[in-house]
């Protein structure tokens, strides 16, 4: 459950990235966030797991009021949200396996469970043969798949993906979309910021369009709506 009321975000340098955002996303929904570059998509999703703190308004995530969230409780918020970052954010000195395992280690899972689960998701993103590589030895698309694996490895209540197919070839993109639909079918909320007209128009879901920091469109089975 995501609830945003009159949310504004101004960065310390004075750039107002978002204003007057009202938004409600139910548990289990699949939502595309679309809009031109610099519109505020990353900022919008970033506020949901406290990568960025909103400037004013109220945000409630999975029952947690972010205005009241104490600093030391932030990890708890983040553990329930799997995030695929536009720039991957992999730990450069850890192997693929270790990067994915890290999300389970913070939960203090047993090594046995960690191993089992990491191998499962590695299989899912087709990276089993690259388990021992470090991120620098991978292509952009492979790194993206590692970050997807890390995002879903702990069965989060919701998943946020910021351009998860930006670096992927069409075939792999469809594979990834299939993974997203599957975890969505199991009840995980999926929020995906994307520039892919093809995906949005093919796999029809709710579409929220952002322009210059405002929500300009919110349709339940929407279209991409922009020329690329």
């Amino acid at each position, binding site marked *: 459950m995501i609830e945003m009321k009159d949310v504004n975000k101004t960065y310390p340098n004075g750039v107002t990235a978002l204003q007057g955002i009202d938004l409600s996303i139910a548990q289990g929904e699949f939502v595309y966030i679309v809009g031109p570059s610099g519109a505020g998509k990353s900022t919008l999703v970033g506020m949901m797991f406290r990568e960025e703190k909103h400037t004013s308004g109220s945000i409630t995530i999975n029952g947690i009021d972010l205005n009241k969230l104490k600093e030391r409780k932030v990890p*708890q918020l*983040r553990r329930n949200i799997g995030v695929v970052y536009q720039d991957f*954010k992999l730990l450069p000195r850890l192997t693929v396996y270790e990067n994915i395992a890290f999300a389970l280690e*913070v*939960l*203090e899972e047993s090594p046995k*469970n960690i191993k089992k689960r990491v191998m499962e998701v590695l299989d*899912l993103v087709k990276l089993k043969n690259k388990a021992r590589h470090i991120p620098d030895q991978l292509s952009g698309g492979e790194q993206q798949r590692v970050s997807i694996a890390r995002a879903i490895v702990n069965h989060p209540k919701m998943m946020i993906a910021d351009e998860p197919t930006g670096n992927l070839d069409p075939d792999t993109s469809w594979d990834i979309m299939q993974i997203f639909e*599957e975890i969505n079918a*199991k009840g995980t909320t999926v929020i995906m910021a994307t520039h892919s007209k093809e995906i949005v128009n093919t796999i029809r879901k709710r579409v929220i369009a952002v322009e210059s920091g405002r929500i300009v469109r919110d349709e339940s089975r929407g279209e991409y709506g922009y020329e690329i």
Partner: protein
Amino acid sequence: MKVAVLSVMKAGVNTVMKFRTLGRHAREGGKNIYRNGWMTVASVGAVTTTLILVGVFIALMLNLNQIATNVEKDVEIKVLVELTAEEGQIEDLESKLKDIPEVESVNFSSKEDELNRLIESMGEEGQAWELFEQDNPLNDAFVVKTTDPNDTFDVAENIKNFDYVNEVNYGQQVVEKLLSFTKYARYIGAALIIGLVFTAIFLISNTIKLTIMARSKEIGIMKLVGATNSFIRWPFFIEGMLLGVLGSLIPIGATVGGYYYLYNNLRDKIQFTFVELLPFNPFAWQLALILLSIGAFIGVWGSVMSVRKFLKV
């Protein structure tokens, strides 16, 4: 493709760390030692240098302390009785000496005893003095010890005014100098050790800070993936401790070995003087333990200090 669901998988923040997590942190900390390469060498070098100095200082200090305590214990006042004093007067003097509150013991030493001691202490040459056995020129004496060696001076000055006292000896200058020397030696030694330890803490915290600075982006990522501050802190904590312990190995070897050598070589040479070294066993092992603890303390403290700032990511 299929997403399997694990039976037990909770997403809460545990307040109590599980034991196996400690194992994970230990492994991570150990790996960091290896990953940091030259940084590790620099930190360990800083600790090594410091601890060698600290080790030598502690060995010196404690031995000095031991010597000082021995000498203090041996500080005695010798009260020479006037040659003309009669037996009853000597007894009066003895009870007056015993009545001084600061005095611990009073022992009578007749002039014959004194002469024997003198002859003995001179060895071969002393035999010349045996001539005097018939006509002993020495005084009867009382050997007075104070409970607190620091009272020696006052008590001795006081005794000078007693009747039938010919002379009071207590090696005034020597005693005073020694007492003040040992006092200052202790203070200066302690100050030096504390200073050295803090320098090492500073060095190690700086080194770890550099490695953390290089890793501040990584720490940010870890936090985004849901790591708590303590989860991030622990490996650094263990890394610091390992750095400190590694840094203490060479100093331990050097001081224990060095002390073994010195002790065995010096003991025979100085055994007739008042100087007595602390025995190799257990002293060397205690010193090793102290160095190990200081090393670990320096490492832990250094890492704690440097990590603190970087957790506000």
